[in-house]
C-alpha cells in the first residue's frame, strides 16, 4: 500500500528519473529497508553500494515491482507508479538484471530471452522466423553474438551466459527502457564480457536512460558511475558525486569505519609441494601441469570458458580424468568422486553458489557444518553444541549478516550466501583449498576478511588455488599466477612479473597468435 498523503519531506515530485520515496520493507522480523528516499536521474549511472545485506537488491526489487514496499512509493519522472508486478514495471520501462539469473532449463536461449513476449502471428502462432531474426539482431547489437549461441538450451549455459541472457532480457521488449538496474552484473563475467557490458552501459547513458549499478568492485564504480548512493543497514548513508570522493571515503560510508588494507602481503610459501598435477586431461582441459606448494597462493586466471572451473572440478573429483596424474602431498590420488578428493584433503568452494553449493532450505549452521560433520560427531551423532560453535565462529569471522545462524540460507542476501559457502570450506581446513570466484558478490569489508583468512590459512601451511576473474584480486592475492586458455595453460607469472597486461596477453595468447576471436560460440561443436 502506498504511504498516506501528505507525502514525507523532500519532494522529489518533479525531479526526472526513477525515485524511491520513503520506502521501507520488512521481512518478518528483518527490517531490510527503512525510509529510503533516493533519485536515479536519467542519463546518469548511479552506483548503489553497501555491505552485503544492506538492502540493495531489495530496493531494486521494489523499484522493479517484484516486491511491494511495506511503506513508501516509487516514482518515475515525478509520477507515482502503482507497481503490482514486475510486468507493470517492465511496461513503465523499468528493467532489472537480477543478481541471480533465472533461467528456464529446457527451452532455447532465444525463448529464454523473449519469454512473455514471444513474437506471434495470427491465432497465437509462434513466429519462429521472427524469433530468430530478433535474437540474431539483438545479440549482434549488444555484441554478444560470439559468446552466446541462441539455440543452446537454458540448462546448458555457463554462469556467464546465464548472465548475458538476463542482460538481453532487460535490453529488449516493446517499451524502450527508461531505467535499468544492474544487480552485480559482472560477478560472473570475465574481462571480455565486462568490456562489452561497459560499452553498453555507456550507450544507455548517452541515450538518456537512468542506470542503476550495483557492484562491490570499486574499480568499476569509479570507472562507470556519475553518482554514488550508499546504503547502510537499510538506510541511506549518503549520496555523493563519484568525482568528489575516493575509495576510502566510500568504504567509510559503507562500513562506518576505515579498512586499513585489502590485501595481506606476506611471503609464507614453502618448498613442500602439496599439489602436483602432471599432464592432466579431462573432457574439457588438456595437458595441464600445475604445482601448488604449502603456504602458497596460486591464482588461475583466464577468460570466460578458459576451463578453469572445469580444472577445479576435475581436481575435486567431479570430472572424469582421462589421463595424467594428480598427487597430493606426494601421494598419487585416484579421484573417482568428490568424496575421494575431500578425503584426500582437497576442498573446493565452487563457483555457482546456488546450483553447486547451497542448501537453500537449510540453516546457516547446517550449511556451514556439512563437510566438517566428521569431526563434530560421536557415534554418528552430531554434537549440536560444537556444531553451533563452529558455525557461529565462521559466521562472525565472515560477518554473515543474518538474524541468527538458524536462519535459512534462502533468506540471506547474495553476498551473505557466498560467505556461507566459504565458511563451509574454511571450517574444514583442507590441505589444498580451491576457491572458485570466492568473492563473487561479496562486499569490500568481507572481502578483506576473506583475504585475511586466506592469508592465515596459507601461513598454517594450506596450499591455495584461487580462480578469479577479477584481475586486482588475482594480482593482490597470488604468489604465482597460472593463465589458461581453451582448456590449456598458456603461461605462468610470478608475483613480480604479474601485471594486468601480462595476464591478458597470456589469456588471449592463441588469439593474438592466430588473429581469431577470443572464443568460438559454444554448442555448435556438438
Amino acid at each position, binding site marked *: 500500500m502506498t504511504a498516506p498523503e501528505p507525502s514525507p519531506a523532500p519532494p522529489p515530485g518533479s525531479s526526472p528519473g526513477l525515485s524511491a520515496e520513503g520506502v521501507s520493507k520488512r521481512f518478518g522480523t528483518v527490517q531490510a529497508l527503512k525510509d529510503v528516499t533516493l533519485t536515479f536521474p536519467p542519463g546518469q549511472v548511479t552506483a548503489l553500494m553497501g555491505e552485503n545485506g544492506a538492502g540493495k537488491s531489495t530496493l531494486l526489487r521494489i523499484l522493479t515491482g517484484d516486491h511491494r514496499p511495506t511503506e513508501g512509493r516509487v516514482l518515475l519522472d515525478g509520477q507515482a507508479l502503482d507497481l503490482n508486478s514486475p510486468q507493470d514495471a517492465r511496461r513503465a520501462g523499468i528493467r532489472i538484471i537480477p543478481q541471480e539469473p*533465472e533461467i*528456464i*532449463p*529446457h527451452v532455447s536461449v*532465444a525463448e529464454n530471452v523473449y*519469454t512473455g513476449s514471444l513474437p506471434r502471428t495470427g491465432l497465437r502462432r509462434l513466429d519462429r522466423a521472427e524469433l530468430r531474426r530478433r535474437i540474431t539482431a539483438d545479440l549482434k547489437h549488444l555484441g554478444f553474438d560470439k559468446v552466446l549461441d541462441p*539455440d543452446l538450451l537454458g540448462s*546448458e549455459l555457463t554462469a556467464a551466459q546465464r548472465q548475458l541472457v538476463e542482460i538481453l532480457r532487460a535490453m529488449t521488449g516493446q517499451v524502450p527502457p527508461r531505467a535499468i538496474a544492474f544487480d552485480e552484473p559482472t560477478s560472473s563475467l570475465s574481462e571480455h564480457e565486462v568490456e562489452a557490458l561497459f560499452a553498453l552501459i555507456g550507450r544507455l547513458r548517452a541515450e538518456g536512460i537512468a542506470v542503476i549499478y550495483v557492484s562491490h568492485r570499486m574499480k568499476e564504480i569509479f570507472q562507470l558511475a556519475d553518482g554514488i548512493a550508499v546504503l547502510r543497514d537499510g538506510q541511506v548513508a549518503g549520496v555523493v558525486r563519484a568525482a568528489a570522493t575516493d575509495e576510502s571515503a566510500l568504504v567509510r560510508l559503507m562500513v562506518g569505519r576505515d579498512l586499513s588494507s585489502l590485501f595481506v602481503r606476506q611471503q609464507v610459501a614453502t618448498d613442500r609441494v602439496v599439489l602436483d598435477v602432471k599432464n592432466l586431461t579431462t573432457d*574439457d582441459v588438456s595437458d595441464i601441469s600445475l604445482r601448488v606448494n604449502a603456504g602458497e597462493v596460486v591464482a588461475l586466471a583466464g577468460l570466460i570458458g578458459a576451463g578453469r572451473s572445469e580444472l577445479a572440478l576435475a581436481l575435486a573429483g567431479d570430472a572424469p580424468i582421462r589421463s595424467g596424474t594428480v598427487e597430493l602431498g606426494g601421494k598419487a590420488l585416484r579421484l573417482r568422486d568428490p568424496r575421494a578428493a575431500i578425503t584426500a584433503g582437497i576442498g573446493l568452494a565452487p563457483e555457482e553458489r546456488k546450483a553447486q553449493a547451497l542448501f537453500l532450505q537449510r540453516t546457516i549452521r547446517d550449511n556451514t557444518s556439512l563437510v566438517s560433520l566428521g569431526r563434530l560427531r560421536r557415534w554418528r551423532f552430531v554434537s549440536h553444541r560444537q556444531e553451533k560453535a563452529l558455525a557461529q565462529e565462521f559466521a562472525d569471522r565472515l560477518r554473515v549478516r543474518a538474524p541468527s545462524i538458524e536462519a535459512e540460507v534462502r533468506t540471506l542476501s547474495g553476498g551473505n550466501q557466498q560467505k556461507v559457502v566459504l565458511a563451509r570450506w574454511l571450517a574444514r581446513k583442507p590441505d589444498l583449498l580451491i576457491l572458485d570466484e570466492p568473492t563473487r558478490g561479496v562486499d569490500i569489508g568481507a572481502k578483506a576478511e576473506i583475504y585475511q583468512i586466506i592469508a592465515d590459512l596459507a601461513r598454517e601451511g594450506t596450499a591455495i588455488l584461487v580462480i578469479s576473474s577479477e584481475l586486482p584480486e588475482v594480482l593482490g592475492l597470488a604468489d604465482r599466477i597460472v593463465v589458461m586458455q581453451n582448456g590449456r595453460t598458456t603461461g605462468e607469472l610470478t608475483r613480480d612479473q604479474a601485471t594486468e597486461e601480462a595476464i591478458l596477453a597470456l589469456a588471449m595468447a592463441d588469439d593474438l597468435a592466430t588473429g581469431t576471436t577470443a572464443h568460438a560460440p559454444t554448442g555448435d561443436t556438438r
Partner: protein
Amino acid sequence: MTTTTSPSAQLPKDQPRPGRPGGPRGLLAAIGGQNLSLVGALIAVVALFGTLNPNFVSWDNIQVIAEAVTISGLLAVVQTVVIICGGLDISVGSQAGLASVTSAMVFTSTGADPYLGIGAALAIGAAIGLFNGIVIIYGRVNPTIATLAGLAAYKGVAQLVSDGRAQGYVLGDPVFVFLSRGKIAGLPTMVWLLILTAAAVHALLTYTDIGRNIYAIGGNDTAARLAGINLNKYLISAYALSGTVAALAGVLLTARTGSGQPVSGSEGLELQSITAAALGGCVLKGGKGSIGGTLLAVALLGALQNGLTVQGINAFWQNVAQGALLVAAVIIQQRRNRERAVGLPA
C-alpha cells in the same frame, strides 16, 4: 560428441533443438531421443507379439488396441500439459467417473437428449478443473495433495449422485452409439477424438506462444513470473483443460459401457495417465515433455497389455511383465545417454 557441461546440469545431450535445420536429421530431431527409444520399444513389442500371433498386427486388432487406450490416452495427454506446467492431477479418474454418471443422468432426465448429457458432463468437468486450479493457486495447496483430495472427494460425489449404481442406458441413442461403435473413415470415432485432442494439444504446446509459456512456467516459474506471464491464469487453465478432457473421457466411458459408471472403469486412470506421461519423457518437476512422447508411451503400454492378453498370459504374469518391460524400456533409453550414474536420474 560435445565439449562440456556446466557442472550444475548433467543433461542428456540429445535434446530436440527448436528451430534446427531439416533434412533426415530434422525428422530424427523432431522425434527426439527419448521418443526414438520408445519407437524402438514399440517396434520390439509389435514384432514379438506379431510373430507369436499374426492376428496381433491385424487391422482389427490395431483398432482394438487404439480403442482400448483412448480413455487413458486422453487423460495422459492432459496430464502431460499439467506436468509440463509443474503440476500433477491425480483426480482425473474421479472426474471422469463423475462426468460419466452426469452424462447418463442428465441424458435420462432430459428425455434422452444426448447433447445436453454430454454438455452437462463437459461443463461439470471444466468446473471441477477450475475449482482444482483455484484451490491450488488461491488456497496454496500443493497440487499433489489438492488433487489427491479431489480423487477422494469427486469419487464420493459421483457415488452420492448415483447412489453407487450404474446410471441410465444410453446405447439406445444414435449419438452415443456413434461415439461407442461408430467409425469415420474406417477408424473408430473414439480414436478420432483421441487423435484430434492430441493434435490440438500438440499444436498448442509446440506452435503457439501459449505452449511456450507453459514450458517456461514449468521450467522456472520465477523466470516466467518476472517475464510477465500470468502464472495463475495458465495454471488454472491447465487444470480446467484437464477437467474438461477428463469429462470427455467420462462421456466415452458412458458410451462404451452404455451407462453412467461412478467408479467402475475410471478408477486407476490417474496412475495410468501419469505412467504414460512419465514414460513418454515428462519430467515430474515440470518444464519438459511432449505429446508425441506421451502418445508413444500410451501406444506402447496399450500394445503390451493387448499382446499379453492375446497370448493368454494370466493377470499375475501380466503385472510382472508390465513392470519389467516398463523398467526395461527406460533403461534401454537411458543407456544411450551415457549419463554418469550418480544421484537420482531426472
